[in-house]
């Protein structure tokens, strides 16, 4: 075959693949919105579920969906970014860093249901936190830790070494160099990792059912059980309680994830603009 012919085929195939990906995305969003938007009104957003969710709204689940990932992010971000800083700036590349990196990689591969079981045994039972936002948040934090560590590490590494040299040559200490030059440069990458993690924890069900429970009450403290929208959707659909409300929940879930991503990217670009 002539190279030119191959070139054309490859181009068409790549285009088709890209098109298919976008089509699937559009189809999912369209399908969920079409089935869900019908039940969504202010009442649905702001009232509590009645009859296990057959009627009524999803207000407590919205609260749960905001609080639980928030707890996870607040715990996992400093821990993960700290680990990444330690691995890149304070250790020399060697056997230990490779072992730690391999460990985090393995952690990323563990199925979420196993995390759920671990969280249940450690936080819910052994530490006595019960089914609670705290247990669920901690479990989610461990789940998203590998993502945060890896993305933070990569973006810290991508900050040019010459910036560090300049900072040191201007009398900067190591910590000053990290906080004033390295972290600002790495921030877009770190934020991307955090956004990915928010998405992951907002959509998580298996480990959350095990650790945060599925209470339909509005939580008032970190030790209260709470139900996220993903869990609510799962239970409504799985138990055949109400498909309409399940789709309504799913639609709001998708809208919230889109909102989170947009706001995060907007913040990131605003920050980047300062730098260019």
């Amino acid at each position, binding site marked *: 075959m002539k190279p030119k012919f191959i070139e054309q085929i490859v181009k068409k195939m790549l285009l088709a693949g890209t098109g298919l990906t976008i089509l699937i995305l559009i189809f999912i969003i369209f399908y969920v919105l079409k089935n869900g938007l019908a039940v969504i009104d202010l009442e649905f957003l702001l009232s509590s579920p009645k009859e296990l969710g057959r009627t009524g709204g999803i207000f407590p689940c919205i609260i749960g969906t905001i609080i639980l990932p928030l707890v996870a992010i607040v715990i996992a971000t400093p821990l993960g970014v700290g680990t990444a800083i330690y691995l890149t700036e304070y250790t*020399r590349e060697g056997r230990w860093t490779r072992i730690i990196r391999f460990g985090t990689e393995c952690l990323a591969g563990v199925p979420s249901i196993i995390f759920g079981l671990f969280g249940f045994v450690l936080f819910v039972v052994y530490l006595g936190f019960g089914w609670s936002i705290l247990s669920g948040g901690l479990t989610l934090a461990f789940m998203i830790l590998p993502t945060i560590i890896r993305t933070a590490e990569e973006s810290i590494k991508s900050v*040019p070494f*010459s*910036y*560090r*040299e*300049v*900072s*040191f*040559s*201007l*009398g*900067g*200490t190591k910590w*000053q160099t990290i906080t*004033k*030059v390295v972290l*600002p*440069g790495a921030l877009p990458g770190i934020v991307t990792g955090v956004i990915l993690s928010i998405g992951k924890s907002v959509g998580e069900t298996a480990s959350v059912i095990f650790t945060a429970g599925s209470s339909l009450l509005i939580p008032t403290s970190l030790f209260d059980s709470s139900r996220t929208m993903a869990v609510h959707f799962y239970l409504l659909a799985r138990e055949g309680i109400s498909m309409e409300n399940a789709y309504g929940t799913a639609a709001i879930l998708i809208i919230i994830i889109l909102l989170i991503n947009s706001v995060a990217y907007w913040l990131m670009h605003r920050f980047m603009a*300062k*730098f*260019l």
Partner: protein
Amino acid sequence: MEDKIVVKNLNLFFDKLCVLKSINLNIKANQIFSIIGPAGSGKTTFLRILNRLNDLIPYVRLEGEVYLDDKNIYKEDIPLPWLRRKVGMVFALPVPLPGTIFENIAYGPKLQGMTSKTKLSSLVEKSLKSAFLWDEVRYKLDASALRLSGGQQQRLCIARTLALEPEVILLDEPCSGLDPISTAKIEEALHELKKNYTIILVTNNTKQAARVSDNIAFFLMGELVEYGHVEQIFTVPRDKRTQDYISGRFG
């Protein structure tokens, strides 16, 4: 004039490879001391010894003594930020930090805890003037430093170093990427600066060394072949290798 920097029996190794061999050198205050020599002679490495920037590289080992004003800078208790403020450095490629022109110049002083806006402003102005950049940027101090031209960026880097109020300035081929006009501006700045600072200049450009220097050292393959006053080096070099190099008959 007294000696600002004294280097005694200096050897430097990259792992087991000896990069600089038994260097002995005295550098006087308030002059431009140039280091010339072909690529790979250890010029840059030598420069980075004087502000201990080689310490960032884990496999570098150093023997011998380096004195700044009779103080051995390789003694244990020397605080590196203190040393690097006294011995400022300008790199071969200009590296503006992401941020505005003002922020770049104020970076060093801010690290030392200078927060007063008026103090910082006057220091930034003074530094930019000394680096011959003030007239070009005075109305856009809040513009990104990355938008400056190459020559302006390099003068920004010089101003940033001056803002540390150092005593010694190390320049590592500061004109290697610049056009003749930018180069002339930097040389003009250097000429003014030597009144207040000791300047050590690494350059690949023998003519530049002849133009600006008071004293010149010739490095070759990690050895200091000879050093002396610029006229002596260019008219009656003691070593044949020096003569070959400066007359372009090398290799």
